[in-house]
């Protein structure tokens, strides 16, 4: 038991090491966005609720990076009033038009490639797969990334203590009748915005590393 607590502390202390960035962020740095409009996602999965659910997970990680993130529920309502109900219609608009409508510096587009659960007799494999793309108000693409995450009970021993702990957290949310995809989606967002070569630079309210 003590060992586990010690592990937690170690994770908390070391978990946030700055990633080594290899991506070209010159377009991002040139655009210097202060504010980001997150629009409803294009949905290529069969779960019609996926875009709404995903929408609720994107504000916090981006705002915690130091950006002003437009209120997602308000933005969705405004877009509906303008006649845009589906991600496809919204993503089809010129980014300049969307940015101008809201006064946003950048627009974040997400495409949901996968959001599904596959059941075999005793196991469940849950997969999320997202394409992310950020475009500045002048239409320049300033960042893009893809993230796929998969959970299945057999994979819980990932060979890495942090991986195992995350698997346990996701596992707690996976019930056969009504799997909750949110922890997996939240993890995908965290990884893509904060870790590895795709990690985006801090925004104006963020801590400058």
């Amino acid at each position: 038991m003590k060992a586990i607590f010690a592990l937690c502390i170690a994770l908390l202390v070391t978990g946030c090491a700055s990633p080594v960035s290899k991506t070209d962020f010159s377009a991002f740095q040139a655009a210097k966005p202060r504010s980001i409009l997150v629009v409803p996602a294009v949905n290529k999965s069969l779960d019609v609720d996926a875009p709404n659910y995903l929408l609720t997970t994107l504000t916090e990680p981006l705002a915690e990076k130091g950006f002003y993130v437009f209120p997602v529920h308000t933005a969705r309502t405004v877009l509906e009033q303008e006649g845009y109900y589906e991600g496809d219609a919204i993503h089809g608009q010129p980014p300049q038009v969307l940015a101008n409508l809201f006064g946003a510096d950048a627009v974040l587009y997400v495409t949901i490639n996968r959001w599904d659960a596959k059941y075999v007799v005793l196991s469940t494999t849950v997969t999320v797969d997202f394409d992310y793309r950020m475009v500045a108000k002048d239409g320049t693409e300033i960042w893009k990334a893809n993230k796929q995450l998969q959970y299945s009970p057999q994979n819980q021993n990932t060979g890495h203590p942090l991986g195992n702990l995350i698997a346990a957290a996701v596992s707690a949310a996976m019930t056969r009748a009504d799997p909750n995809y949110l922890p997996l989606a939240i993890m995908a967002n965290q990884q893509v915005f904060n870790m590895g070569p795709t990690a985006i630079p801090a925004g104006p309210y963020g801590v400058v590393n």
Partner: protein
Amino acid sequence: MKSMFKTVMAAAALLAVTGCATQKGLYDWGGYSGLLYQNYKKPETVAANLVKLQTHVSAMEQGKAKVAPGLYADLGTLYLQAGERDRALENYRKERAAWPESAGLMDSMIKNLDNKPAAEAKS
């Protein structure tokens, strides 16, 4: 003992997943994303979730803490959808005052409501 082990593991995992965010978090979100999720998943909980978000925002104000970006505005929109135009306006004005980046959107939301009789405000 086994169930306790599970609980500890789950807590540890939660810490590992959320540890970074809480450790150097800029804002207290008060469960905002979970409330929005509930609104979409269980529409019958919208009224209760509105109260929870208002309670959180009021607590932030009383503690002189910065209210996270978008919370006032989404609270305003939830009020608007509940037919409470004045409270919607009040929250849009607060969002605008707290976050200059929101000015364009908030001005048009406010203007839109000001031009509309109260009876038509419910969308």
